[in-house]
């Protein structure tokens, strides 16, 4: 069964992350083609029937700053990850928690339970079962003191 989900607004994402990190966060919608970096992490959200409800794909810079901002890890750890191309263990654990909490960006129907099913941490991580019925909205996320990265919200049209 295919149920359309409403578009997630940039302001909504910014406010959500502001509450999560306690830092100033802005999200700006960008054209998908500007999202030039391949995803380094994809979070997949499913309902109780294992039906994929939504996905979040982040480039390496984005997933690193999301992880760092959660517990305010020094920016040097982000720089190290960007240089090596791999997330450190604590950045990865924190990013997982950010994705876990971000389930509420997809919980637009309180009667429908949505859970984080899986996070694929790998360069060029592929989203699950992308079809023509999916829409990608790309955002530039800017976090106070940590800079910016690109994030895609993938949801059903």
């Amino acid at each position, binding site marked *: 069964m295919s149920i359309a989900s409403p578009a997630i607004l940039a302001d909504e994402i910014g406010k*959500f992350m502001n509450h*999560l990190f306690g830092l100033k966060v802005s999200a700006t919608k960008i054209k998908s083609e500007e999202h030039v970096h391949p995803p380094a992490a994809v979070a997949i959200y499913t309902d109780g029937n294992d039906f994929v409800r939504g996905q979040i794909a982040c480039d390496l810079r984005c997933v690193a700053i999301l992880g760092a901002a959660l*517990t305010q890890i020094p920016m040097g750890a982000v720089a190290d990850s960007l240089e090596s191309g791999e997330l450190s263990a604590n950045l990865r654990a*924190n990013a997982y928690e950010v994705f*876990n909490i971000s*389930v*509420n960006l997809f919980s637009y129907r309180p*009667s*429908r*339970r949505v859970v984080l099913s899986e996070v694929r941490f790998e360069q060029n991580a592929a989203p699950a079962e992308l079809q023509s019925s999916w829409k990608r909205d790309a955002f530039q996320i800017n976090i106070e003191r940590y800079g910016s990265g690109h994030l895609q919200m993938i949801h059903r049209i």
Partner: protein
Amino acid sequence: MKILIVDDSKAMRMIVCRTLKQTDFSGFTVIEAENGIDALNKIASESPDLVLSDWNMPEMKGIDLLKRVRDSGNNVRFGFITSESSLETKALAHESGADFLVTKPFTAGSMQAALDPILT
């Protein structure tokens, strides 16, 4: 006042603790547990005044921890801090004896609003 924070994520335990310090409440000490079994042991040994628990944890879910606590006759004040926000979850928490449920991400204000009715 002694507050037990139960979460398998060290980062989240730290954030809950930090947020508690940003509320108007003071004079509390925080103890931590990383899973349900650890929490049961600390509830028995430390007698916290309030338990703040995650919902989704490996080994023992938060709701099972609450049921174990209530089944033992312990009426410690108990709230969930969780990414779960469905009506089903909220109803189950309430029916099982939870005092409140705060949805992540939370702010000092939302934490204060949840704790005010039971701590003041």
